[in-house]
């Protein structure tokens, strides 16, 4: 009896884990290929994306890019930037404009537009679904942080 129960639990756990694995996403933070930064921690991403420091270490202008609302954006805003809500982020950008004359990020639609933006600007930084990075995109941008969710 106990053995059957254990098998049932193991099967259920396996199914549950395979199911969640198939639904899991992988978000990547990307920067321009010419950016000398090879890898970033969550704290680094926060400091750069939120313009807590005034520029990249080489003096290049920080150019974060944002996207329209999506589940992927929610993960980025909450888990990486540490904001409690999208409104929290909106308020942050407006406060930063008053405090440091810094502009909020450009907002574009879709991963393709994010990749295009980051590849166009040396100081670009954005986030996309890992699956959207094909060989062509990887020749123009580099992944500095991967986040599974």
């Amino acid at each position, binding site marked *: 009896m106990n053995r059957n129960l254990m098998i049932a639990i193991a099967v259920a756990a396996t199914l549950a884990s395979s199911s969640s694995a198939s639904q899991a996403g992988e978000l990547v933070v990307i920067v321009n290929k010419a950016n000398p930064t090879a890898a970033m921690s969550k704290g*680094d991403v926060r400091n750069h994306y939120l313009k807590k420091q*005034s*520029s*990249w270490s080489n003096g290049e202008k920080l150019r974060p890019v944002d996207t329209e609302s999506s589940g992927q954006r929610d993960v980025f805003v909450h888990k990486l930037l*540490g904001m*409690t809500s999208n409104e929290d982020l909106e*308020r942050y950008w*407006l406060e930063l404009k*008053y405090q440091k*004359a810094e502009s909020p990020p450009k907002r574009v639609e879709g991963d393709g537009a994010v990749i295009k933006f980051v590849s166009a600007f040396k100081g670009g930084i954005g986030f996309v679904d890992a699956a959207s990075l094909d060989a062509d995109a990887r020749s123009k941008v580099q992944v500095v942080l991967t986040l599974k969710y």
Partner: protein
Amino acid sequence: MLKLFTVVLICMPLSASANEFSLSGFADVNAGYQFGSARDAAAQAMFETFGLDPHAKSSQSGFGLVGTDFTLTSELSDTVVYLAEVNLQVERGRSTAFEFDVERMYFRKTINPMLNIQAGLFFTPIGYFNRNLYSRAWMMVSAQVPDLFEEELGLIPTHTVGIQFDGGFALTGNHRLEYAVSAGNGRATDPVANVYARDDNPWRSATAMLEWVVPGEHKDLRFGVSGWHDVINTYRVAQMGETRSIADPTTQAIRMRELGGSLHAVYRGKRFSVLAEAAAQRHTVIRGMVTAGDERTTLVGVVAEASVNLGDDGRWKPYVRYDRVSLPGIDGGPYLGLRLDDDEISRFYIPDAQMAITGVAWDPSAYQRLKLEYSLALDGVRPQHAVVVQSAFGF
């Protein structure tokens, strides 16, 4: 008002140009009721006789338009930004007139994370509140500007016309050490005026601020220390209520040294936020004769505020705050009560203040903050009890 519309109209066509240009701002509307007698009857009597304004600063009575602030930013290049901030606010000491006030106006050059330069008119890099919140009701959790940072009182130098260098250095574990140093024209003949140009006082003010930033999962924890120094050329007005002409050769010029220091600790987190600042400032007369006891005077001020974030996304913020300002002597000393009007300089009574404040703020959206606040005056000339409702906007 005409000047403001002219500025806006001139700038509007620029929005279609290639450089990044934006206009944003904030405003607030208040309704308040105050009751009870002042805690310090003697101070109240002095204030009624020698006070600058029939109302103490930030007192609440009826409906009030504190003002509307317009902030213009323009990215002139990848590394240079221009900021101009003007304010339409109720005229100082008046209830039926508005005035046009320049808050900030500077160019800022970004070189690298360790060094940025800005020149023009900016907030003096002292503490946290003055640099980041100032009188921005929309950004403040509580409703009232602490007397310590009230521009219209000029107790400490809130604005500088000059140059600032600032930046940050990365430490281990994403900790950062941030700094700002500035040099400027410094204090004018009276404490609420800014020397925008033609500074006849060869002494330049100097300010330095150092801040240790501890990174957090949500927001940051900051510990900072600031110091400032200035040499002020002004005039001796011996008694409260006295007015003298600065053109009168018998009016005695005096020179004093201002030396100030402040400490701050600020945490803005997911569950709660804390802001605590303390400042002390000493004026020492170094040339000229003043009334006995006025040769060396000290101001002390404290602001402490704590709030918790409740409800959906932390939109509800119950808070408590404590303010205290102890002015030198019985009347504010030989400088802080001076006001210059054309060539006449007068000395007014600036009272101490001590307040316990509690309230709740609610953010219906990212661009609006509503507050209900009760304040109890523990000292000073304000009526003992005050209730204010505030609707503050950012846009």
